[in-house]
């Protein structure tokens, strides 16, 4: 779908174009910039942006797109908390800072630099902006059969009044296995912009866990995209925690290309005052006998707004597809909002597809029961909210990972109680 030509650019569009121009001439970058100049960012009239009117909601874009100074970078690195022990690649304001100092495990190959990219069309705004702004990233390939035990962490930071864009490309050879932590952090006090596109490909029998932890400041706008192809017998588990950011759009696009592949997406979105968190997933089942299972639990407080768009397309040949999708939301205030849009397009005739969405408040029965046992109203609410969201991660077998995710959730709930 193409957008109509536009007459005037918004302030944010002008600033993105200016930032792109500053990066110097480059054929692809210039082509992307021309597309934005011609069509602008998508508005709610574009179906996939109906609940997140990017053109009107992205009010500003940081003027300063300079990379961080050495001093800033050192300070930032010193202050970065650890999520889990990992082979860490750190990016600040879109520029690679440092990688793991230890010898890399056998079968893990990595090379920093901008990965090849592109975007579908002008409505693919996350990748379009990335094509205009990204100058760095990492290319990782894991050899067939290699099992990388220590997680690989891609840590993205952005300093105040700055922008960050990275493009990564990751491939796993046949039978390879690895886990990745995609982290996004920023300061809370100043406006910033953060953008990442990752292309991930799993060949036959590869097994990946991909963990996205977004804990950016309340003035950071975040546009992220993960594009995946799943080969035969491949397994992918995606865990998402959105616990920060201002205007956030997280896109997950998975092409389920190989028979017997298995995809699981489990996510928690914690939406505070002033935040707008949109998770848009698009699963394309192309091959027979595949499974996909998506579950999201969301909590919105204050005037927080959330969006879930879950598209599942089952191609004619993708018989015996088993696709399930659930999105449950707890609204903790009268001003909070959540929009859930499941979208199923099924061309095969022998499939199982299920979807469900609920939006509720805390139940009075639950609250009274806990209070009648002595818990204060505040503690009772906190316990119920925590239980509601943490169920998503209950099935994680590794205690340390589950505990870390739940600790991040509890930290957010404590600060937004």
């Amino acid at each position, binding site marked *: 779908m193409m957008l109509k030509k536009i007459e005037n650019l918004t302030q944010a569009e002008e600033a993105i174009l200016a930032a792109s121009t500053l990066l110097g001439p480059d054929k692809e970058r210039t082509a992307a910039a021309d597309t934005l100049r011609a069509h602008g960012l998508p508005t709610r009239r574009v179906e996939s942006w109906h609940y997140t009117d990017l053109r009107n909601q992205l009010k500003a874009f940081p003027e300063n797109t300079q990379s961080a100074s050495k001093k800033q970078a050192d300070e930032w690195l010193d202050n970065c908390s650890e999520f889990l022990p990992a082979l860490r690649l750190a990016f600040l304001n879109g520029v690679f800072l440092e990688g793991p100092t230890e010898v890399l495990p056998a079968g893990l190959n990595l090379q920093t630099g901008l990965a090849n990219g592109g975007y579908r069309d002008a409505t693919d705004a996350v990748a379009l902006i990335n094509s205009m702004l990204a100058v760095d990233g990492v290319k990782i390939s894991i050899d067939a059969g290699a099992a990388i035990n220590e997680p690989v962490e891609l840590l993205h930071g952005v300093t105040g009044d700055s922008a960050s864009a990275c493009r990564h490309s990751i491939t796993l050879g046949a039978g390879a296995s690895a886990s990745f932590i995609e982290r996004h952090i920023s300061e809370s006090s100043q406006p910033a912009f953060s953008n990442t596109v990752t292309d991930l490909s799993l060949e036959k029998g590869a097994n990946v866990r991909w963990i996205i932890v977004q804990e950016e400041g309340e003035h950071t706008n975040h546009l992220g995209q993960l594009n995946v192809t799943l080969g035969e017998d491949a397994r992918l588990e995606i865990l998402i925690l959105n616990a920060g950011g201002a205007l956030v759009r997280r896109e997950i696009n998975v092409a389920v290309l190989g028979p017997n592949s298995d995809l699981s997406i489990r996510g928690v979105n914690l939406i505070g005052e002033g935040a707008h968190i949109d998770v848009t997933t698009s699963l394309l089942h192309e091959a027979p006998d595949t499974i996909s299972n998506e579950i999201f639990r969301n909590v919105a407080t204050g005037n927080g707004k959330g969006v879930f768009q879950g598209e599942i397309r089952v191609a004619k040949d993708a018989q015996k597809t088993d696709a399930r999708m659930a999105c449950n939301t707890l609204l903790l205030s009268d001003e909070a909002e959540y929009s859930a849009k499941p979208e199923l397009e099924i061309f095969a005739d022998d499939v199982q597809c299920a979807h469900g969405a609920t939006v509720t408040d805390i139940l*009075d029965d639950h609250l*009274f*029961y806990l209070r*009648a046992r002595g818990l204060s109203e505040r503690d009772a609410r906190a316990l119920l909210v925590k239980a509601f969201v943490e*169920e998503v991660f209950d099935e994680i077998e590794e205690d340390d990972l589950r505990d870390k995710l739940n600790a991040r959730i509890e930290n957010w709930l404590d600060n937004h109680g």
Partner: protein
Amino acid sequence: MTMLEIKNLHVRIEEEGTEIINGLNLSVKAGEVAAIMGPNGSGKSTLSYALAGRDGYEVTEGEVLFKGENILDMDPEERAASGIFLAFQYPVEIPGVATINFLKAAMNSQRKARGEAEFTTPEFIRMVKEAAGSLNISMEMLKRPLNVGFSGGEKKRAEILQMALLQPQLCVMDETDSGLDIDALKIVADGVNALRSPDRAFVVITHYQRLLQHIVPDSVHVLYDGRIIRSGDKDLALHLEEFGYADIIADAA
């Protein structure tokens, strides 16, 4: 000592706007087991919710004194910490909250509210194991989410376990016998009897005399149309079992 003194209590359910408790008087001494019996719709559950302080149950007139103090301005959690326990007719299922974690949160919240030191985990586990054993509750069951997937009997035993651990002074038991088979009823009654003490009072609300064969009451009160219309000893329960409520209701009219 009088544990509970209810004087001319009137309670209205806000949502429905109707007055369900209508000038109820009741006095229960420390050490006493008082049974409240009544037909459906007489106000039994409303009375239990009003005592526990549930939102939406508005007291329009009267007083409820617990150990001589009016509790009507207290929140449910304050009443709990002061020693009032409501055993629910339908214990609520709460997914995602492990029973054992809930027990610890409840015990320590009450202790904190009373200015007492919180229990350490080993102290807590020791107490739970001891109390759970005598109620035939396994530690496995306590790791499950609170009441989720519990059978009717398991839910009621879990209520009695909470009562045993929280050591309240006034136990209000709302139709504890509903949904129990005879074996479960026996276990629950034994649990209650083990907690009977000169410092503790029970208000046992029930529809049937069956429970009172196992928990023998000191006094029996007939609740009808939001008021106590007859009081007596345990023989009154036997009379009700045999003849029903009709003659007593007719007398009161």
